């Protein structure tokens, strides 16, 4: 039990730290709002110009809800610790984790979820406001079950994104100037997770390819649960696949870190 104390402390520290910067997170959602705005105007113009009422399987209200929520969810699940990890590796900060009885992976994940707890609270408030607005404008029904499943999928999404970035951060063992790769990866995940456009609007082939990748389970899948375009028979297998991806990515991150640690020479520090 005592062993868990240090991780609890890490979690609380990260939580307190994030509490300090909660307005910053809110601001980052607002500044990210411009791209959501572009998206909404684009879809409005598209629906106005098109004779059809359903485009690529989405009605107007569904696509607007998708655009707004995908923007918010992608901000919530974003990782952002990969730079710190790279810095630990580059400057030798990792050495203290080797010498001390604290596991780096556990430290990182507690740190990540500590920060995310506060962010989730901010997002939930925002989410309630948005849902009230949406249900007022459109005939949009929201069931309790749907919300629960959405929250579960968000939790899995957070885990998947954490593991993706934790795995990729092991690249810092071989590349010293790794920041460009990280930002590129971040943007790549953003794109493939469906944060910009729903993934199925680029045709069946693209949708099929992305269904074999973990990225769509970060944003696309959770948001589709909440905007009502998935039935329960589609949601349950999706959640199971999310769980499978969590396990697969855990193995990948373990492998990548094990091989990275062999290269680690503890420069600096």
């Amino acid at each position: 039990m005592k062993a868990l104390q240090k991780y609890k402390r890490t979690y609380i520290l990260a939580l307190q730290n994030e509490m300090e910067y909660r307005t910053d997170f809110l601001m980052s959602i607002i500044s990210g709002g411009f791209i959501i705005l572009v998206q909404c105007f684009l879809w409005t113009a598209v629906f106005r110009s098109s004779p059809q009422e359903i485009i690529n399987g989405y009605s107007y209200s569904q696509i607007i809800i998708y655009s707004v929520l995908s923007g918010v969810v992608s901000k919530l699940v974003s990782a952002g610790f990969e730079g710190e990890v790279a810095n630990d590796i580059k400057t030798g900060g990792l050495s203290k984790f080797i010498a001390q009885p604290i596991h780096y992976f556990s430290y990182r994940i507690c740190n990540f979820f500590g920060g995310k707890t506060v962010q989730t609270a901010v997002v939930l408030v925002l989410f309630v406001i948005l849902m009230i607005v949406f249900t007022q404008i459109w005939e949009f029904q929201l069931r309790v079950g749907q919300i629960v499943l959405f929250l579960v999928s968000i939790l899995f999404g957070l885990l998947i994104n954490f593991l993706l970035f934790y795995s990729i951060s092991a690249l810092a063992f071989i590349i010293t100037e790794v920041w460009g790769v990280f930002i590129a990866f971040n943007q790549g995940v953003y794109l493939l997770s469906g944060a910009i456009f729903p993934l199925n609007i680029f045709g069946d082939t693209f949708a099929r390819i992305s269904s074999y990748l973990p990225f769509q389970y970060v944003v696309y899948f959770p948001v589709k649960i909440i905007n009502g375009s998935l039935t329960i028979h589609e949601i349950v297998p999706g959640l199971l696949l999310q769980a499978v991806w969590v396990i697969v990515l855990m193995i990948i991150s373990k492998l990548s870190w094990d091989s990275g640690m062999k290269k680690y020479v503890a420069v600096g520090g």
Partner: protein
Amino acid sequence: MSISLSEIRKHVRMFFIFAKNSLVGYMEYKANFYSGLIMETVFLLSKLIYIVFVYQLGIEINGISPDQMMIFTGTYTIMIAIYTGLFMDNFYRFAGHIRNGTLDLYMTKPLSLQFMISFRHVNFAFPIPNLIAGITMIVLAWRRLGIEPSFIHLAGYIGVILSSTIVTYSVLLLPQILAFWTVKSGSIFDILDKCWDLNNMPMYIYPKWLRRIGLYVVPILFITNMPSVYLIDRLDLFLGIWIFAAPVISLLVVRLFWKLAVKHYESASS
């Protein structure tokens, strides 16, 4: 404020020395160059996804055909190349100069302070993928739309790009100047900075009020729309005059604001 020819010549010469310095920096730290290149290529892809979407849809959106849309996206990409190449590195460092006191050092140099702040660094990595993709898109769309490849068209387009470059400089420097008061880079100018995203799509998808604000009040929409509007023949007399007036007015505003801010400056760090 007297501007003599020799002063201008000195500044131009210094700009090339700064550019050379930056290039030498990239040659020394090649990894930085490649990192930047990879990163910008992925960003470019996420911008191109919009044009893929528009072609996939295959309809005119608010009267803009997919080919015309490509003119907009191409111009946007070229403007990103110009912004990231010339201004971005300098603007992002600006608040740091105030915080760390390097601004004091720059003040003692026999060059215009605003010039030093604006042009000290040139980025060579980011513009490369954007320039290639942007020019390719413009050439492709130009051919598909059957626009006559005359000298007038080309010179006109480059002229409007120049005008847009000046507007870009002014509009994006303006929020940075706020750092004279706030010292650290805050969310306010992060938000203003993000306004840039509005250029992702042609202004015709926006409602009239937003278009007006974006063209005449904070001319952020001017940047990619004007050169494209010129090419697809949607220019009216008023917009034609605005192409000449906007860069002059915005540059004047930013210059005056700069002077006001410098007067206010009282060296934060030391």
